[in-house]
């Protein structure tokens, strides 16, 4: 396959960036998108140029490291897929592909396609957990959880924290990410004890980090590699209001 690539290059957070054209003539349809970028980087190294920086690690769609905006869509055209699980068979010979970083003011650019998503960690730090001591747990089957409850919690817990939801949102809202953690924990009996403080702290932290408000356009769900549902946002809002009303 021959590809014409326009890739965002930017040295650092304070320098201007621009789209640069690259040509690749030896891509094959079975390659993953990241393997295609590896091939571009190999060309760059052979020309003595610095490589395109991008985050990636497991390349199995689960670590959440990778993510870029491909032809205007976070993680590219495949539904329910992270960039590492996108394969070149989704493109045509001769295609032009534009590749940019996830953009949001709460995700400062580090270099090229690499962005700083530590704001997500700080949202979890603010209260996205169950306060339980490691060695002091009750017998596991003493907490009965129905199959439906468990699978509802699992659906939310499946979030890989990649940030595509933020990048797809016109307000750069982190509501899908935050709500996934909120509903994962509140849907389990052991997570209900801290439900009020948790949701308030996490929502406050989300605002402090500079993420925008959610206006429910559902763009986040459309690009989420784990297909996390926006219904979690509705539940988070309900939980937040409930907490604020002291219910």
């Amino acid at each position, binding site marked *: 396959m021959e590809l014409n690539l326009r890739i965002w290059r930017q040295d650092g957070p304070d320098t201007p960036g621009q789209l640069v054209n690259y040509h690749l003539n030896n891509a094959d349809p079975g390659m993953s998108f990241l393997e295609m970028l590896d091939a571009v980087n*190999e060309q760059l190294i052979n020309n003595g140029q*610095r490589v395109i920086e991008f985050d990636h690690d497991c390349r199995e769609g689960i670590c959440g490291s990778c993510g870029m905006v491909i032809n205007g869509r976070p993680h590219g055209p495949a539904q329910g897929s992270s960039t590492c699980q996108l394969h070149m068979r989704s493109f045509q010979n001769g295609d032009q592909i534009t590749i940019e970083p996830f953009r949001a003011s709460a995700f400062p650019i580090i*270099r090229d396609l690499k962005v700083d*998503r*530590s704001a997500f960690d700080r949202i979890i730090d603010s209260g996205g957990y169950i306060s339980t001591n490691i060695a002091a747990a009750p017998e596991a089957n003493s907490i*009965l959880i129905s199959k439906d409850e468990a699978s509802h919690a699992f659906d939310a817990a499946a979030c890989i924290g990649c940030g595509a939801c933020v990048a797809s949102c016109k307000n750069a809202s982190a509501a899908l990410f935050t709500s996934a953690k909120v509903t994962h924990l509140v849907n389990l009996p052991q997570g209900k004890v801290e439900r009020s403080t948790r949701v308030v702290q996490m929502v406050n932290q989300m605002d402090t980090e500079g993420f925008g408000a959610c206006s429910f356009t559902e763009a986040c769900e459309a690009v989420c590699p784990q297909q996390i549902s926006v219904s979690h946002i509705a539940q988070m809002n309900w939980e937040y209001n409930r907490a604020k009303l002291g219910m």
Partner: protein
Amino acid sequence: MLDAKIPNGPIEKKWSEYQATCALVNAANRKKMTVIVIGSGLAGGGAAAALGELGYHVKLFCFHDSTRRAHSVAAQGGVNAAKNYQNDGDNVYRMFYDAIKGGDYRSREANVYRMAELSVRLIDTCVAQGVPFAREYGGSLGNRSFGGVQVERTFYAQGQTGQQLLMGTNSAIARQVKAGRIERFSRHEMLDLVVKNGRAIGVIVRDAITGEIERHAAHAIVLGTGGYAKIYYLSTMAMGCNATAAWKAHKRGAFLANPSFVQVHPTSLPALGKHQSKLTLMSESLRNDGRIWVPARSGDDRSPEKIPDSERDYYLERKYPAFGNLTPRDIAARAAKEQIDAGHGVGPMRNAVFLDFRDAIAQHGRETIQSRYGNLFGMYQKITGIDAYVTPMLIAPSPHFTMGGLWVDYELMTTLEGLYACGECNFADHGSNRLGANSLLQACVDGYFILPSTIGNFLSSRIKEPLSPTDGPEFDQAESKTREDIQKLLSIKGSQPVDYFHRTLGATLWDCCGISRSRESLNRGIEQIRELREQFWNDVNITGGAHEPNSELEKATRVMDFLELGELMCIDALHREESCGAHFREEYQTKEGESLRNDEGFGYVSAWQHRAEGEPILHKEPLSFEAVNVMTRNYK
């Protein structure tokens, strides 16, 4: 002589007696002590969270942008625990026995028993953290089984068990970050260990954004940095998995045990092209319902549905009727290689076997199979474009888990005082073959339960000691060595990218020290690796600079260590003149082609001491078995 410090007394009492008698650090003193933890997976992250919870000041380092991304996240199938919820006869002893047997009698009894013993509490802890394990309709926890066992003791969260456990660990970390007890350093990679008079006193790390080289001192240091199977380049490991921290510790005096014991997983996706950067694992749990077969006639290239049952060879069921498709990994992987080598391989590169769900779907219905493995089928389709509900999966063996690692005693301390290794980066619990769903277990119990007790035993006598000053000569020396290496790497400006060397090393190791090895292949491997290492230091081409984000430089600092470790793996495999578990030496096999172990000659752990010049020195930890009868493994 290596002292493993195994407590006296009957095996089922060793851990409780140890805990009852080990020295403690009181809460007021814990907050005065600093512990460095490298790695934020289930072992390192779990240790950091547990130590933070106890009140120690913890500095937690990971090379990822977030602690949540450690490669524990990718484990799919499950975590074992001897809960006996299914009333199928499971208990701690049986689980211990299965793991000892599965490891082909090359692991340490006391450690393995402790792992089984603590498994029960682990599930309780995870459930309390909110890990959404699979549930039965009545609300109790569900189980399934894995290779090498005849009970159902594996707890799972769909095919994302590792991710769910890691989110639990990560939330325990977050809680301690908020409490101010964990200081988190993401995008920081350990590049050297600082040692003074045989004791680990600090680390040298590189900030991956600024390139700054930093010095950090601690009262004790814990490595939870995972395994090194990425040394094969094509493996199920994440791209960043590496041996650097462990290897540098080895070069500073920590012994490395059984480095040639590498598990080849039988059910990964096969390599499909020359650009392939990794092989994706398909959970072993698929073997609960999937049947493995190849066309009986070699070179048969009909599509699988056109091959009638009479012309299929369900070779695992044929050769190992008692365990069938659930034979342990080493046996299943070698059996697949045998079929592929004999020309029965399938797929475009004829390097795979079929994993077929036709019969399971006919028996249980598509919906049931979908609910058990839906996300795995989805993942398979994303990567290959093939619907495995209709066409059998193509699977092949690939390097997966390293049983070898830093030698540790019962307290998980290495041969360097104050340096601990937990999870996959130590060697202790899996022998020469790890049973499925024991890796998450070992990582978790090492981090959550064992280290918090054993590290206190060490720290209790050092309460009055201040932290080592980071301007001492040992820090100076380690930092300048790191800077020199980086400068040298960047100055070579040769003609080949880092990946070329990594791929070449991987291919050499797969060929010479892979699924089977021989004296001839290992000698060849050693020679080729030495040549490749020399070529690397003359011809590697790294663009970019030292004081900026530079992923090529990061790769190079890892590959330079792999190029040394690879040689030691071959040396270790060469010296072990027997076949055991994942270590299959072609010269030592039975007439039927099964492994031929030599307990009299090799019933020990090989622990290698590094020397700056010349061959490494072999130390032996003899293995004695008191609670089990050592016998030949038989899965027929």
